[in-house]
């Protein structure tokens, strides 16, 4: 890629000075090394230092730079600039309160994550060495533990938009199943009790937007299905 100009339409809102949010048309000239959307946004910041977004690792493991890119949630650092249509329309993740520009308030998202007790519960006296787990049992955690808490999934989910305070959402439920699936965890019943409610788990209607947007290729819908299976098996 040689030097080229990229057109953007970006959601801007600074509560310190703006009456209301607006969409800003702006373009930036990229250097040959600017391959990802994040590179382009950083180039933009050199021009306008008020352009606000979160970023850190720039390699898709920290989960900071999730945003709505041309209508679909994704990570700026894993999106190739030349793979998406221009003008590139950027909005904050949908459904969460906006703090400023592309920065959203993730309190509700993390509240739901915390609500599922995202930690291993094992009340046996810890052995001197590691607890044993077979490679097969460990494999059950693949596709679950890799979540980076970017919130792309939960903020693309209509059920979460509608009931962010009551529905745990795909990220939280993926984490819930990560502990249910861990042979070292002893809290299965309490974990299922915690989700046995018309909203917390059962507001998932398998719309699968979460699967479609997950930048790590994870499948929260499948994990949610497995929790539902466990509920049913427990009931009979």
């Amino acid at each position, binding site marked *: 890629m040689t030097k080229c100009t990229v057109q953007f339409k970006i959601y801007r809102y600074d509560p310190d000075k703006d009456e209301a949010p607006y969409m800003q048309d702006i373009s930036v000239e990229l250097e040959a090394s600017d391959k990802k959307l994040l590179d382009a946004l950083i180039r933009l910041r050199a021009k306008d230092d008020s352009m606000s977004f979160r970023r850190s690792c720039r390699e898709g493991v920290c989960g900071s730079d999730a945003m709505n890119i041309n209508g679909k949630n994704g990570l700026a650092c894993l999106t190739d600039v030349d793979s998406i249509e221009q003008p590139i329309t950027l909005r904050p993740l949908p459904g969460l309160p906006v703090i400023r520009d592309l920065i959203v308030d993730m309190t509700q998202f993390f509240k739901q994550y915390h609500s599922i007790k995202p930690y291993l519960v094992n009340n046996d006296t810890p052995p001197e060495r590691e607890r044993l787990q077979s490679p097969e049992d*460990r494999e059950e955690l693949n596709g679950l533990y*890799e979540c980076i808490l970017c919130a792309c999934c939960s903020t693309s989910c209509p059920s979460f938009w509608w009931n962010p305070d009551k529905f745990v959402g795909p990220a939280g439920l993926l984490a819930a199943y990560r502990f249910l699936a861990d042979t070292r965890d002893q809290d299965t019943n309490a974990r299922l009790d915690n989700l046995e409610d018309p909203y917390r788990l059962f507001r998932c209607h398998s719309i699968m937007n979460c699967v479609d947007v997950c930048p790590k290729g994870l499948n929260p819908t499948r994990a949610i299905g497995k929790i539902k299976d466990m509920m049913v098996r427990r009931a009979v």
Partner: protein
Amino acid sequence: MNVAKRTFDAVIVGAGGAGLRAALQLSESGLKTAVLTKVFPTRSHTVAAQGGVAASLGNSTEDNWHWHMYDTVKGSDWLGDQDAIEFMCKKANEVVVELEHYGMPFDRTDNGKIYQRPFGGHSMNYGQAPVMRSCAAADRTGHAMLHALYQRNVRANTQFFVEWMALDLIRDADGDVLGVTAMEMETGEVSIFHAKATIFATGGAGRIYYSSTNAFINTGDGVGMAARAGIPLEDMEFWQFHPTGVAGAGVLITEGVRGEGGILRNSSGERFMERYAPNLKDLASRDVVSRAMTTEINEGRGAGPDKDHVLLDITHLSPDTIMKRLPGIREIAIQFAGVDPIKAPIPVVPTCHYQMGGIPTNYKGQVVVPKDGNSNSPVAGFYAAGECACASVHGANRLGTNSLLDLLVFGKSAGETVVEDFKSGQLKLKPLPADAADVSLARLARLDGQANGESVFDVGLEMRRTMQKHAGVFRFDNLLKEGVQKIGEVAERAKRTQIADKSKVWNVARMEALELDNLIEVARATMVSAEARKESRGAHVRDDAPDTAENPNGRDDENWLKHTLWYSEGNRLDYKAVNLKPLSDDVEPIALATRTY
């Protein structure tokens, strides 16, 4: 400006591996603790560690902490302190097993134990052959570790202040540390965090270099704050260049790739490491491999149209192994190098990765400075752990997987020391000086009022280019001298940074300007310390200190077997002795020897 005051038993700055491990110790002991972090904890840079954490569990090959200690001392080119190294290697099994009990999803051996893989510089029987010592969760060990530590802190009800950026260290007239000032990103408000104990776990400053594996947040905030507050910085000339950053992008490719059998090749396909390290080959220490790669490129044997990189080849591994053990690496190679490593080799170059030096501490996590004739006198109320600290276990070159171990062992140790000092009544809440917040408020006022100033972006770029050119993998006397001059000029420009954005709400421009102040301290420390050290040792190799019969590898123990201490005020240098004596009688000192692999 109105400055709120909050009081705690302890304040921890940073919520990466070291900060979270220390926080657990304090929260579970019932101390009123605040953890300040400028990003949500799981976004800290520990998340990007890939290959593993060292512990001599011996799950797949025979192993013991004596061998680990020997490898670490040798890896450090004898600049590491042997008391701290013994402490770390002895504690390794305990902290890794604890992590497993917290729920960390380690990969498993067939008999259900923690999976371990070989790693660079780690050997059995004092250098004889590679050992399987790196405990791994696929190639996402840091991610799995950071999340497990955060989750355990959720269980322990640790109180986090998320997206709060610490600004300055507060010291009183006695030099004791009383806490920090910090700014809440969402409101721009400044608060004083007044505490009996302050633990820095703020990570490294790899962003001083142009080409870096580090996250944008790795701006050496704690190191910069400490330096501005008069604490010397130790051994800052020693920076690790990781052999395998993706060419062009800088993104890390774990050494675990070579641990699983990956091979480095030059343009003719030759496995060149056989010539440089006949014994451990591709698994020699990182400084050795990075220099070999740079030599290959400099002598015209680089790959690609511009002959500017070498190739990391795993095409001979089975796709199953790659998918199971290195799935994240495959994603990174496809995303950032445009190659599927199952089919084609990955273009790689040495890339700045890790800060061996930092805030001087002892093995208990206490910050120590020269005072009244004692070169290691603890600063009351001040502790540090992880990459921001220099214990010193890595000396002149860190072994892969020893960083995750460092942050577990010394995060825990710093936490334990604070709890002990608290219970013994040694820690007191000393009164805040009246001007406790003045330095921070003056910095913010200067930034807001600056006219005709310098762009943060431009000054930062100039700093990164200067560091890259003047203090890289190989160092040259004339370039270092010029570098000292140039970085001094950049530091002057950084005093006049100007931002257009004056909003109080989540002001990234302000944050980046404040971060640059911290980076500049680190860059100055690095250049000045490097220029002064007239020998080659570990990652610091210079043209005027070549390999001779008298000084093998250019190392000059007679004059330079000592730690550098750099003071920000006046760019002053001091030195202190390396501790060659282990902590206990369980082990003999590892005697000085020439380092070969």
